[in-house]
């Protein structure tokens, strides 16, 4: 039984067959030694790009099918029925399965707030949405392993619940632009009326749309990963980001926050960093910093909330991911 699981995991998730195939291609097709610097980079690039695109397409398709049952209007209704911590937990969980890119944070924020959802719940959702989604969990399991993937989700959800709750306690409702509360609440909900064919079309459309949006980040991410993997001297990386350097998590945060990339693009970078001896916590902090906070989405949020609330949001999330980095670095031996 466990042998079968290991085999399925290696072949379907880690795609060992693909790695072997690419090795043959690099050796016989390009006449490069896969163990050499160039050969190794070419292998890393081809293998990671193909693997991420296959997994991404399959995952987005299945997840979008599930998502078609949870349009934002329904999420809002479900959340409106709960109160207190339970609502925050639910918001964080729904954040993992709701279609979301930084471009839809504004409509969701206005839609939730104008319908009377507390800021605590809305922010739990806003933190969890880009940070944790089912596709990234499976990819984490593919690149690292299942315990790291599950630990990442758990910690991402805890950060979302605590961050949202904290924002709720600070009573910052007066820091939201007034027009947000005056926006009408429209409730066009199609979740009951959609046929299976429409859900399948929706899922296919999502795959095309998301692949179209993120392919460039994946290519850049894998390219950077391949460069780190074989060209940047290990001594240089360990001086800046080494496990024994207390500042490594801070460097990863400062480098990651302004960056704008999809989690699928940052995974190969994290993968290469960990292979070069960077602490797991440092790599995860970098991933979270890139995906949870980005300049474009901050600029958009600034249009609906005033600076103090935006600063509190950025502050809480930043401190949270720094803490996560240190906790993971201190306990990494449990996961590898």
């Amino acid at each position, binding site marked *: 039984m466990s042998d079968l699981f290991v085999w399925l995991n290696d072949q379907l998730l880690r795609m060992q067959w693909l790695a072997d195939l690419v090795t043959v291609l690099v050796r016989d097709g390009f006449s490069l030694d896969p163990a050499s610097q160039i050969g190794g980079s070419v292998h890393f690039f081809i293998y990671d790009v193909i693997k991420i695109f296959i997994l991404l397409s399959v995952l987005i398709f299945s997840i979008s099918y599930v998502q078609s049952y949870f349009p934002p209007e329904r999420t809002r209704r479900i959340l409106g029925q709960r109160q207190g911590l339970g609502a925050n937990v639910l918001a964080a969980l729904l954040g993992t399965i709701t279609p979301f890119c930084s471009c839809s944070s504004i409509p969701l*924020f206005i839609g939730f707030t104008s319908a009377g959802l507390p800021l605590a719940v809305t922010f739990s959702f806003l933190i969890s949405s880009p940070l944790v989604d089912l596709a990234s969990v499976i990819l984490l399991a593919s690149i690292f392993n299942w315990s790291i993937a599950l630990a990442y989700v758990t910690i991402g959800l805890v950060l979302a619940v605590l961050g949202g709750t904290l924002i709720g306690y600070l009573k910052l409702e007066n820091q939201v632009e007034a027009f947000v509360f005056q926006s009408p609440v429209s409730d066009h909900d*199609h979740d009951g009326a959609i046929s299976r064919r429409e859900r399948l079309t929706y899922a296919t459309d999502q795959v095309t749309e998301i692949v179209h949006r993120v392919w460039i980040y994946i290519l850049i991410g894998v390219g950077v990963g391949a460069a780190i993997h074989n060209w940047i001297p290990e001594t240089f990386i360990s001086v800046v980001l080494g496990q024994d350097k207390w500042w490594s998590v801070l460097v990863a945060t400062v480098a990651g926050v302004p960056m704008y990339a999809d989690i699928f693009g940052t995974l190969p970078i994290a993968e290469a960093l960990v292979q070069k001896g960077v602490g797991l916590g440092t790599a995860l902090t970098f991933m979270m910093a890139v995906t949870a906070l980005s300049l474009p989405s901050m600029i958009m949020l600034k249009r609906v909330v005033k600076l103090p609330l935006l600063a509190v949001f950025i502050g809480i999330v930043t401190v949270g991911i720094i803490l996560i980095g240190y906790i993971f670095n201190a306990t990494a031996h449990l996961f590898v």
Partner: protein
Amino acid sequence: MIIKILGSGCKKCVALGENAKAAAQAAAIDAKIEKVTDIVAIASYGIMSTPGLVIDEKVVSSGRVLSASEIGALLKGS
């Protein structure tokens, strides 16, 4: 009659705009079709998923590309 297409310029919004145009032509209605692309303006209509369709300032659909015949039915109703 003013028909507004709410969406930040995605493929679906273009498709919805074309269906709306076809529906108005088929129903022989003199409709002006406007695109609303500013995300805050879109959200001010209260919708959370694009594309949205607004007929004479009333939101009639969001998150879906309606076919020309569906829009035709809505045009008659308003």
